[in-house]
């Protein structure tokens, strides 16, 4: 934060009040802060409200250098914040001061209470004559610093609110995006799995190499290894039996969809026709199967099959 010379007092109060009450005040400030400290003392240093209260007098002092600063400050503070109770509290506290007249049940009375010469004395008898020029400097913009001082609190609160809101909004947005994505991914993977089913599971002995190559085109590296193994046994067997397997999808559904990994359940009907060696006519067989494709999304957004299982688990426990 940079400060202009003209409003240094207001800032010093504000900043000192906010963060460093023990800051090094210049001579002029020493006088006033001395007065301020005397008035504050009963609150104790750990009173959280105090810095805010302390923040104000410097600014009001600028507004009304000849009168007692405190009552003005209090009153304006109380009005500004809409905290009459706080003003009353201050008044009560002031009543305990040696120079207070015990009045100040409300903020307005405080003016009289603190107008006594005894009270003003610590301020006006400050050894350093510097205050006067400082007041003059501040005078032309006395409205602004007061607003700024109250504004400082408002600004700080707003800043905190903005940070909290930004964090909450970001977290909520990320969760929403994840949920939306998993839903969208589920639908996309379902479509992809359905369209890959025949490629992955059907073959014809006349062009089985090409069929398996097509299947491997939809497979991740992991599943690709499985297909390579399968080729070693399936190709000779299919050729020997002149096998043709066709696959239709009777139903497809999303089992679960998490971030870029979707389990798709498919009900498939396989029609396998074979002409085993020594047979004169082809045998055809239809089987109803269930398969699970675990789909993963590639970097470019294309879906690949990472796992393929036939969902034939152990038979249910016998009772």
């Amino acid at each position, binding site marked *: 934060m940079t*400060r*202009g010379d*003209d*409003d240094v007092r207001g*800032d010093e109060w504000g900043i000192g009040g906010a963060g460093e009450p023990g800051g090094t005040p210049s001579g002029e400030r020493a006088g006033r802060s001395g007065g301020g400290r005397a008035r504050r003392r009963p609150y104790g240093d750990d009173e959280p409200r105090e810095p805010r209260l302390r923040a104000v007098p410097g600014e009001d002092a600028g507004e009304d250098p000849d009168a007692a600063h405190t009552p003005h400050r209090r009153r304006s503070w109380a009005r500004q914040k809409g905290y009459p109770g706080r003003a009353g509290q201050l008044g009560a506290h002031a009543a305990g001061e040696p120079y207070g007249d015990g009045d100040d049940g409300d903020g307005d009375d405080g003016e009289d209470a603190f107008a006594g010469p005894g009270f003003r004395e610590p301020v006006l008898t400050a050894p350093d004559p510097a205050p006067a020029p400082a007041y003059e400097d501040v005078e032309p*913009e006395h409205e*602004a*610093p007061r*607003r*700024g001082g109250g*504004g*400082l609190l*408002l*600004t700080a609160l*707003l*800043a905190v*609110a*903005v940070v909290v*809101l*930004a964090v*909450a*909004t970001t977290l*909520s*947005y990320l*969760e*929403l995006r994840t*949920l*939306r994505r*998993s*839903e969208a991914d*589920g639908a996309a993977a379902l479509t992809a799995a359905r369209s890959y089913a025949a490629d992955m599971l059907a073959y014809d002995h006349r062009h089985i190499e090409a069929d398996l190559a097509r299947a491997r085109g939809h497979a991740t590296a992991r599943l690709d290894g499985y297909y390579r193994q399968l080729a070693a046994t399936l190709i000779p067997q299919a050729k020997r039996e002149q096998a043709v397997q066709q696959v239709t999808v*009777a*139903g*497809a*559904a*999303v*089992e679960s969809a998490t971030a870029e990994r979707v*389990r*798709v*359940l498919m*009900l498939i009907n396989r029609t396998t026709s074979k002409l085993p060696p020594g047979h004169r006519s082809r045998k055809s067989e239809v089987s*109803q199967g*269930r398969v*699970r494709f675990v789909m993963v999304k590639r970097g470019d957004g294309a879906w690949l099959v990472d796992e393929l299982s036939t*969902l*034939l*688990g152990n*038979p*249910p*426990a*016998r*009772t």
Partner: protein
Amino acid sequence: MERPRRRLVITLVLAVLALVLGGGLVWIRMDLAAARAAAEEREAALRAAGVHAVSLLSIDHRTVDQDLKRILSTSTGAAREAYAKEAPARRKATLDHKVTQTGVVRSAGLVAMNGDRTAADVLVVADALIRWEGAKDAPEERFYRWTMRVSKVGSAWLVEKAEQVP
């Protein structure tokens, strides 16, 4: 002169930001609540279909009345009516042959859910093992594929239609 004005500007900017963020947060939280609810409903619908499938496949001649009641309590509408109608025959067959049948769900998946999240189409894959007490035959394993329509009745998801997929 500079600073207070700058602070005022900063305050105003922060206020506008806070308002925008607050509005955005409310908006996002509403969407988030809907998305979470949808995800929960999808899971609940799948669970309901799975539970119903197990109920359909698990029947024991020793607990047949309970088992048949469970089928009814996990279904609604047309399916429930059909089960209620079949129940006496099924009860008799189970008792006559001293059947013990155990079902297990292999998988359930969501085909689609309607916008109101009150109905969903689900595929269920399950197996059953059937034993006949006293019979010499080995237990028989059967495979099932269903398409089920589940609908939300009150706060519960119940199966309204269950058809085997040929």
